[in-house]
């Protein structure tokens, strides 16, 4: 084949441009640490990266939701525990009040202790987090229990709505316990029963005390149902969090596999390209200077 000067120049220039662009790419890869910078580098990978970023951002949100729920559930758990302790002392005091050898003064003293316990129950029912009542259902801005027009009976003014929080994709947990299940449940009506117990002790009506103590036992049972549910929700939070940790780890690994350059490989190809460029420059320089004209005088 006949080789003209232009061909030498052209192949030199195209090879040089090719090498320079490869060198540019590999040096960009090394300096940025990324192999996927534009969608055209890997269109499928880029769409996947968007999806993974979305997932990772959601996981961050789920962590926040989990922390939020944990605070709420822990406060509920604490409140239910103190209700449990209050119920225990109600039962003890009522049983003690049934002791026939007690004087009426002593029974009156027990009755006023029970009145105080009712106060503690009302205080616990009004527990707030960030200004929100935890026992009022979705009516978080209202007191759960309100004194009726008779001046004696407390009624529940919250609702039965669940406060649900999304803690993972499609997974919501209920974080609240309706105050009506704890303080005014049908069959036990704890907050009013304790008042009636005090009144029965003052009236020395042991028959009524027996009946009311039965209602207090029922309150214990319905309370334990609520406590179990709260405990389960707390466990669920931890399980969900562990799963999110694992997913976040996997997603980080995957996005790194898609986006990040293999540095060892990128650095090797960078130095290979540098060597090739130097060789090409040397060859080009010597090619350009050689012709028969140099030799004829």
């Amino acid at each position: 084949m006949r080789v003209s000067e232009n061909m030498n120049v052209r192949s030199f220039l195209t090879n040089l441009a090719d090498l320079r662009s490869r060198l540019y790419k590999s040096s960009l890869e090394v300096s940025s640490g990324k192999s996927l910078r534009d969608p055209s580098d890997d269109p499928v990978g880029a769409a996947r990266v968007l999806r993974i970023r979305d997932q990772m951002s959601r996981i961050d949100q789920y962590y926040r939701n989990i922390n939020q729920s944990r605070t709420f559930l822990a406060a509920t758990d604490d409140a239910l525990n103190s209700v449990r302790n209050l119920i225990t002392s109600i039962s003890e005091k009522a049983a003690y009040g049934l002791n026939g050898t007690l004087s009426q003064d002593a029974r009156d003293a027990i009755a006023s202790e029970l009145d105080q316990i009712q106060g503690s129950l009302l205080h616990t029912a009004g527990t707030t987090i960030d200004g929100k009542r935890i026992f009022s259902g979705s009516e978080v801005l209202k007191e759960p229990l309100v004194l009726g027009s008779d001046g004696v009976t407390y009624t529940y003014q919250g609702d039965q709505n669940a406060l649900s929080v999304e803690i993972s994709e499609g997974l919501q947990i209920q974080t609240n316990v309706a105050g009506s299940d704890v303080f005014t449940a049908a069959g036990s009506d704890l907050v009013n029963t304790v008042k009636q117990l005090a009144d029965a002790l003052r009236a020395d009506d042991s028959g009524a005390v027996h009946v009311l103590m039965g209602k207090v036992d029922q309150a214990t049972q319905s309370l334990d149902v609520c406590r179990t549910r709260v405990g389960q929700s707390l466990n669920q939070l931890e399980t969900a969090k562990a799963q999110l940790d694992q997913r976040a780890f996997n997603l980080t690994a995957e996005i790194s596999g898609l986006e990040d350059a293999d540095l060892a490989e990128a650095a090797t190809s960078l130095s290979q390209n540098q060597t090739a460029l130097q060789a090409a420059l040397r060859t080009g320089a010597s090619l350009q200077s050689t012709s028969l004209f140099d030799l004829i005088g």
Partner: protein
Amino acid sequence: MSSLFDSLQVALKTMGNLQTGISVVNDNVANVNTPGYTRKRVIFEESPPVITPEGAIGTGADVLRIEAARSEFLDRRILSEQQIQGNLAGQQFALEQIESVLYNEGQPGISDQLTKFFNSMSELASDSSSLSRRQVVLGEGAKLADSIRSAYNTLSSLREANRTEAKNSVDKINLLLGQIADLNVELEPLVSLGMDGGSLQDQRQELMGQLADQLDFVSYQDDSGAMTITTSGGTPLVVGGESNRLVLEESNDGIRIKVDGADVTADLNNGRLAAYEKIDAETIPSYLAGLNQFAEALADEVNSIHASGAGLDGVSGRDFFTYSATDPVGSLQVALTDPAAVAAAAVGAGAGDGTVAQQMADLRDQSVTSLGGNSLADFYSNMVFQSGLDARYVQDSLANQQKVLTQLQNQRDSVSGVSLDEEAVNLILLQRSYQASSRFIQVVNSLLQETMNLIG
């Protein structure tokens, strides 16, 4: 019978011929790097002999013509490959811009902002009486609208920049067409006499190469040497010394290219101008339409859930986003200003109820009919995928096309290019012949001297 004086005449003619040869070599060497230059060579021919009774005696050589080493076949192939390459190169810039606008790596792009918006809804659902969380939802909604608008505006200004490229391309084409027509006129007297057009013809070929980068055209040379150029649909652009002008007309649907009032846009399939036209009329509008579709779907879907819930004031039926159907992205805004108006709760539920906020958060994974059954996030990532695929296709094709073109240009240069070694050898040959001729004159001169001496 021939005389010594005749021999002197022949030697003189030879030296003239050799000088022509040397100037052609000189021209070749001088143009070794001139783009489009075709090497020339001198074709010599025996001069007509003098007929004597003893027989024919030669009278040296004449310069028959100066020939250019052209390959019309390769010239044509190169023109058509240049048209394809110009088209790909014209598309590449815009497509790479589009993919980078949509992907927006590292910045809060549409995709990130969409996630944040839904995250803020999820957080509101967990604590829906909180005014600060409601304020965050309004803020993320506004930022999402802004990010869609920002991408839309960047694409629109990209369309403007692309139009400017198209206008520049039209100007360049008109200039080239005029220059080619002028060269047609200059070449006519040479070619009609059967001579090679020489550097004028090289120039015209080079201009046609530049034209091929911008436009696809059909060309043929008639007997007078004039190059006729028409669009691929046959609309004449250059006929003899006359050239037509391309006119670019702008409209919202895309640019139109007209020649003499006739719309030739459909004739444009290759060259840069066709690429700019396609980017302007199809590519960018399709992404703009996609963003409008996305904005409408977002607003409609969020609104329909939002209207079913109630704000802290108990009022329901309010929209979260507003937009006008004529310019969805441009007019997309958060309709609410009061954070208490965000409808997080079901109608009739308390302030802490986040059912409706959760429904809005759940929207992110739901298939949306107006987006062809895709979720919002999937619809958008499909757009990114498409933009990456388009850019990748053009990049790969351009790299291949570059190889094809280089190969063809090398083939042409193998025929038409200047080789310095060859020219050096030619020069040596010419130099030696010249030396021989001058030596010959010297010898004839001394013979004549001898003759003179005999007389004197």
